């Protein structure tokens, strides 16, 4: 049998060529969250809304978002996401929406929703690949004219082709952007649906008003804002020394314009002053006046180790924009009608030199259950629960179901891969029995509760580009646990009080049940009339209830 012909290096070289990002995406779209039609719809909307919110906040505008989904054919949908943001300068529109890995946020150490500059163009690309139609963008900047672009993307060159370019004389908003794409998708309600995403976004962004029109509905649903101020814009920061790896450190040394090592450390990093710089350099046995560009591989290694050994204060937290306890409470109250809310914002902390901050909110209460209220006189009343938002059930489960965990990274809801997420692990590791909830070993707590967990950070360590789960760094796990414990303690006090009231109510029901018989007995013995009997029973009830404490 003839031996199989093997390829030569030259032959192989003929097949070796650059892979465009767009091509890569076309083959690996699951990495960006477009694995199936249902998820594609969600990811598209999510990316567009993230961008809109980032833009509005950066411009200090109270966001007003419109999301529309129309079903064109069985598996074909048109998605419109519109904001009242600052708009996009005409020249940038094709690149932003038509080029992968084009964006403003990748290089900045600033807290924002988007990070890589892939999302929105990937959405456009997906639409184009599944329907042949590229995205249509309309945008208007203040005091400018609105423009409409239709874009086709060149897969191989990762470049946008403009298929339509139109100036619009009359646009319905003074500024803002409207993104429209047609894509192959499927729409479903329930957990991890677009509906779910919109609702959770409304929870984590109580300053945003959202109009959302799902397919098949005439009027948009309105998620009104609860707070009228835009969150503070997070400051941009330099990297913290602890967060820089050796390779990156070497690159920074090579690229710096500083002429002295001491200057380099102080210029390029945050939290390094002359004193700390001196200490690091002494530990590394280097000269303060060494040229950064001339530092060799082993010297850089010494410098790296010296940085790890030196005590450096935590990065500034001005770069973080936590939602804040009040806003989390507002957001939860707005979208999730519960009996009790408990929130807790941790002080900022650091993982790998990246500042982050954890916030937790718990909404607790049984939807649809009657509640017991204690009035000023110490009487307990059973009141029918007021019904809140029509789709409350979406968030709060029944008392015998596991609690629902709502995960957010920089205010963006994370809907997928719950079980591999650091937040979920922390919830499971927390001992909820201490706070009055039941929990089996190694499982979620059980109860009618929603646990809201938010991580604000300049760089959120997602486990994948689809931004679905957060990597379990020990520092993050710990902070989440501490925040859960804080909120849990407050909740525990409430639950225990609730149990006391329930208990007391049962006891008083007992009184209600038997006290009339005391009346009957007295009536039969003393020959009282009915009125006298009723009065005696009422007196006894008052005496018994006022002597009971709750």
């Amino acid at each position: 049998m003839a031996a199989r012909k093997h390829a030569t290096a030259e032959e192989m070289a003929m097949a070796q060529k650059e892979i465009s990002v767009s091509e890569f995406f076309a083959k690996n779209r699951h990495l960006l969250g477009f694995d199936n039609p249902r998820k594609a719809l969600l990811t598209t909307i999510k990316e567009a809304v993230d961008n809109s919110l980032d833009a509005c906040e950066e411009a200090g505008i109270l966001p007003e978002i419109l999301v529309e989904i129309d079903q064109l054919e069985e598996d074909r949908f048109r998605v419109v996401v519109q904001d009242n943001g600052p708009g996009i300068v005409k020249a940038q529109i094709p690149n932003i929406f038509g080029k992968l890995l084009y964006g403003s946020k990748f290089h900045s150490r600033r807290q924002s929703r988007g990070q890589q500059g892939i999302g929105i163009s990937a959405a456009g690309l997906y639409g184009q690949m599944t329907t042949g139609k590229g995205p249509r963008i309309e945008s208007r900047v203040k005091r400018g004219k609105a423009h409409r672009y239709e874009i086709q993307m060149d897969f191989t060159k990762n470049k946008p082709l403009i298929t339509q370019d139109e100036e619009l004389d009359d646009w319905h908003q003074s500024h803002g952007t409207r993104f429209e794409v047609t894509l192959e998708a499927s729409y479903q309600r329930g957990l991890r649906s677009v509906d779910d995403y919109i609702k959770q976004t409304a929870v984590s962004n109580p300053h945003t008003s959202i109009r959302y029109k799902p397919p098949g509905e005439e009027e948009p649903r309105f998620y009104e804002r609860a707070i009228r101020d835009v969150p503070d814009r997070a400051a941009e920061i330099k990297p913290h020394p602890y967060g820089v790896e050796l390779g990156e450190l070497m690159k920074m040394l090579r690229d710096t314009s500083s002429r002295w090592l001491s200057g380099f450390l102080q210029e390029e990093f945050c939290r390094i002053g002359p004193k700390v710089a001196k200490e690091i350099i002494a530990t590394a046995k280097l000269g303060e006046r060494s040229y950064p560009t001339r530092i060799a591989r082993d010297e850089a290694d010494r410098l790296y180790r010296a940085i790890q050994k030196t005590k450096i204060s935590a990065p500034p937290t001005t770069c973080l924009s936590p939602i804040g306890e009040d806003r989390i409470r507002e957001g939860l109250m707005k979208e999730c009608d519960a009996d009790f809310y408990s929130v807790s914002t941790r002080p900022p902390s650091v993982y790998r030199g990246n500042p982050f901050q954890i916030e937790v909110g718990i909404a607790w209460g049984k939807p649809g259950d009657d509640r017991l209220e204690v009035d000023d006189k110490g009487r307990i009343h059973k009141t029918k629960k007021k019904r809140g938002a029509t789709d409350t059930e979406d968030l709060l489960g029944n008392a015998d179901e596991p609690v629902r965990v709502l995960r957010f990274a920089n205010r963006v809801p994370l809907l997928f891969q719950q079980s591999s997420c650091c937040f979920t692990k922390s919830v499971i590791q927390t001992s909820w029995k201490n706070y009055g909830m039941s929990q089996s070993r190694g499982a979620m707590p059980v109860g009618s509760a929603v646990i809201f967990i938010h991580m604000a950070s300049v760089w959120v360590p997602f486990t994948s580009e689809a931004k679905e789960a957060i990597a379990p760094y020990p520092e993050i796990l710990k902070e989440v646990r501490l925040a859960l414990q804080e909120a849990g303690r407050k909740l525990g006090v409430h639950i225990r009080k609730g149990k006391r009231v329930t208990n007391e109510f049962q006891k008083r029901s007992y009184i209600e049940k038997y006290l009339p018989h005391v009346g009957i007995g007295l009536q039969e013995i003393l020959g009282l009339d009915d009125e006298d009997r009723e009065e005696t029973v009422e007196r006894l009830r008052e005496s018994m209830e006022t002597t009971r404490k709750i």
Partner: protein
Amino acid sequence: MAARKPTDKTSAAKAPAPRRAPRQRSVGAHVPETSKDLKQVALDSIREVALRVHQTANAGGLPQIQMPQRNLANVKFDKKIGYFEMAGNLKTRTLDVNSVKTFAQTLRLMALAKEMVADEDFATKREAYYVSKNWGDAKFGEQRESDTVLDDIEGMFSIHDVTREELRFVPEEHGGSVVGALTVIDRDPETHEPIRSDCAAMGSGAYTIPSTVDHLGFETSAEFVLVIETGGMFQRLNHHRYWRTANCILVEMGGVPTRATRRFVRRIAEGLKLPVYAFVDCDPYGICNIYRTLKVGSGSSAHVNRLFCVPTATFMGVTPQDIIDFGLDDATHPLLQVDVKRAKDALKNDPFFQAQPRWKSAIKQMLKMGVRAEQQAFAKWGLNFVIEEYLPKKLRETKSFLP
């Protein structure tokens, strides 16, 4: 035959003279002519308790009811008084969430009592339990619950000197059996006509003590009352007409005497001035439960012992010494663990035995011997040994009976 005790002191003079002409004695019903008043006392007491609850309620307070604690720790014994008296510890029940059910049930049972007193009807404990089934939420789940409440009510009213019988709650079980030289004068509940029962004319049967006895009158020519633990011994003595030979009244208790039996014997003993001799098994149960309860009452009915005991009763036998004197040592059984516990408990906690040095040494003797003997053990020497030898010999020395 076993050795006999020297009997040279007063025994000759005290020897019974059965052929002496019978002396007729009689006693009427306990308080038949004042039964109207008794009824009124019961009604007034019920009303008084209810009225206090009503007044407290309308004054904005939490009503309380008081009753004596019913246990051995709340009794004291004084030989001069002769029965267990209540030490006076009261239990107060205040209306609150934990007591509201019992409170309601107590008042409703009191209402039932009021109705029964007024109508001269009665209810057994079981019937009272069934009456509650018509009370809706306040009904009793089990008879045990209603019995407890009834006991509480009895305790409450004992403070007012009103008995359970006067509240018209009667026990399920009837009293013991009676034969001998006694005529019981009862009355027809419907016609109120007197009915005379001659306990000497019961053939091979016996007169049965009813559950309430205070309305009975008695006539007798007997010399003493012999109270017997077991039905077997009672039958033997009745069959051989021992009551005729010894001119006595025989009462069968059948274990621990019921309240009616105790009251019956007490009324005969007191009203007819007859001595009462107890004849029970020689074991801790016979002594510490049956005899003790007959003579001084029990801890759990401390509030009514005054009426339901026979302080003049004495213990004829079988004593531990009798086992030796009458050669019964090979007709005994070893004491069981529960017997030993009961005996030791009596020595340690029972105020009656603690006040009686002779009893203490008798019980200690029994514990030391480690055996018990039944009344019927005398059959070892012949079926009628007990009639021919034991009883006459013992009855010659009634002074030596244990107190």
